[in-house]
């Protein structure tokens, strides 16, 4: 076998070489120092290209509920209702993962749609219903948001059942939801700010359309409850320094974002209020990772707007950030923006 061309090496590195070719290549590499050296170079090039490209990303914001993306009715009424129902049930299945779009001052709409929680009538209704009736009941769905918490579940009935066992996470979600509910009146434009641009135009004519309102948290934050629990020692290793938190508060858990080097410290403010402190090494290049959580976290490294104190304020998310020593720290919890900001100021390396 003559030396391997770089295209083959890239396909190999990309994990896209067909098995037979891969075996042949690996056999050759074992014998050929030249090709091994080339492989090393190509690997570095590949990583470098990913890093370069990865440094130009949009600041990532949570996706609006898919249900919001419905288009203007163009077909028969039956068809419209049906697709609406279908979309609504999707919103349901997506659950907490699809949280509020952050407000955009630049895209005001006239008629704020009432934030209506779509998902929970699934909790009440036990069987699969026909799409039409489901759509209608979705429109006036009452509260009980936490049935939204499970993202992946296809069968919504299971959602409710699965909520029960994990009392801990249910409690947290309930807290978040309370926080979100408290926030809603203060920001009347939250609902309509979920749509923008072309979609906003489409939505304008249907201002009565329901919106899913779950939590202001970005996707990956909501998923944080599923991050693996780690020890403090591991947290320190990941961060390269002591994790930070609020001094004097009980630290409940350390968790790690499986996709990046982010760590979350959960602390209890009191028996019913949990504060989450997200942290990771500031600066430096982040390995490219196409996974959702990783890119979401990585993108938060690129600040969009600072307030006077230089603290990062992510629009509408109740998520504030600052740098503490070498760490970039974000705080989240069911509290007012002011409270969160004040808490954030007190964040320090844990004793």
């Amino acid at each position: 076998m003559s030396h391997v061309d770089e295209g083959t090496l890239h396909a190999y590195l990309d994990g896209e070489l067909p098995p037979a070719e891969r075996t042949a290549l690996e056999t050759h590499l074992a014998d050929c120092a030249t090709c091994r050296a080339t492989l090393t170079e190509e690997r570095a090039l590949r990583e470098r290209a990913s890093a370069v490209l990865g440094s130009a990303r949009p600041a990532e914001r949570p996706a609006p509920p898919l249900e919001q993306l419905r288009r203007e009715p163009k077909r028969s009424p039956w068809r419209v209702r049906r697709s609406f129902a279908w979309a609504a049930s999707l919103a349901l299945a997506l659950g907490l993962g699809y949280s509020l779009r952050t407000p955009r001052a630049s895209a005001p709409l006239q008629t704020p749609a009432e934030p209506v929680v779509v998902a929970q009538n699934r909790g009440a209704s036990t069987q699969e219903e026909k799409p039409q009736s489901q759509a209608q009941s979705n429109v006036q769905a009452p509260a009980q948001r936490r049935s939204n918490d499970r993202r992946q579940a296809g069968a919504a009935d299971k959602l409710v059942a699965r909520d029960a066992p994990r009392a801990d996470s249910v409690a947290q979600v309930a807290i978040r939801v309370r926080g979100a509910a408290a926030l809603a009146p203060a920001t009347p434009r939250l609902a309509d700010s979920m749509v923008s641009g072309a979609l906003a135009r489409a939505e304008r004519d249907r201002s009565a359309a329901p919106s899913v309102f779950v939590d202001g948290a970005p996707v990956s934050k909501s998923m944080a409850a599923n991050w693996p629990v780690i020890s403090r020692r591991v947290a320190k290793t990941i961060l390269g320094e002591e994790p930070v938190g609020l001094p004097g508060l009980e630290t409940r858990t350390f968790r790690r974002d499986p996709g990046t080097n982010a760590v979350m410290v959960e602390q209890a403010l009191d028996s019913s209020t949990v504060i989450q402190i997200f942290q990771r090494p500031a600066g430096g290049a982040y390995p490219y990772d196409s996974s959702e959580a990783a890119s979401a976290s990585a993108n938060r490294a690129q600040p969009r707007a600072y307030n006077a104190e230089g603290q990062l304020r992510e629009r509408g998310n109740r998520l504030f950030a600052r740098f503490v020593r070498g760490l970039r720290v974000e705080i989240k919890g069911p509290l007012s923006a002011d409270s969160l900001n004040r808490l954030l100021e007190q964040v320090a390396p844990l004793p």
Partner: protein
Amino acid sequence: MPDDIAEVYRNTYPALVRFLYRKVWDAERAEDLAQEAFARALVHRPENTRGWLFVVAANMARDEARRAAREKRHLTLLKSEPDAVHSTPEDDIDAETRTKRVRAALDELTPRDREALLLWDAGMSYDEIAAQTGLARGAIGTTLARARRRLVDAYDAGLEGGQHVARG
């Protein structure tokens, strides 16, 4: 049976926004277009949602680029000083500069190489890239190798040639 769009939405939305961003270079526009693409998918219910989305998104980005060219003059006018006076943190400047460099470097690639690279970066497989670009599957590795080299070389050349010397 069409794909589960909800699943595709959850997994692909960020990648689609990123893909679009590197074509239109406007984060909000990229989000709008990505959402528009999904909205269309909800109506059309394509068999292969992911592939379909990227085709639609690429088309929208192309239209967008034409439109943007027309509006460029207006944008220049709109981007006047007042906003910039707000204490812009250094990080922002750096991020902006970096984005400009990446953009300039990407412009050095041939359209086909660039497309392959952006699709790969958006999480597409070689098969999917081949289907979308019309390249032979066996040529994707070579295309990506060339695209990566070109990107890195152009980016580094931009760093050396630019008047800003990297600060860190």
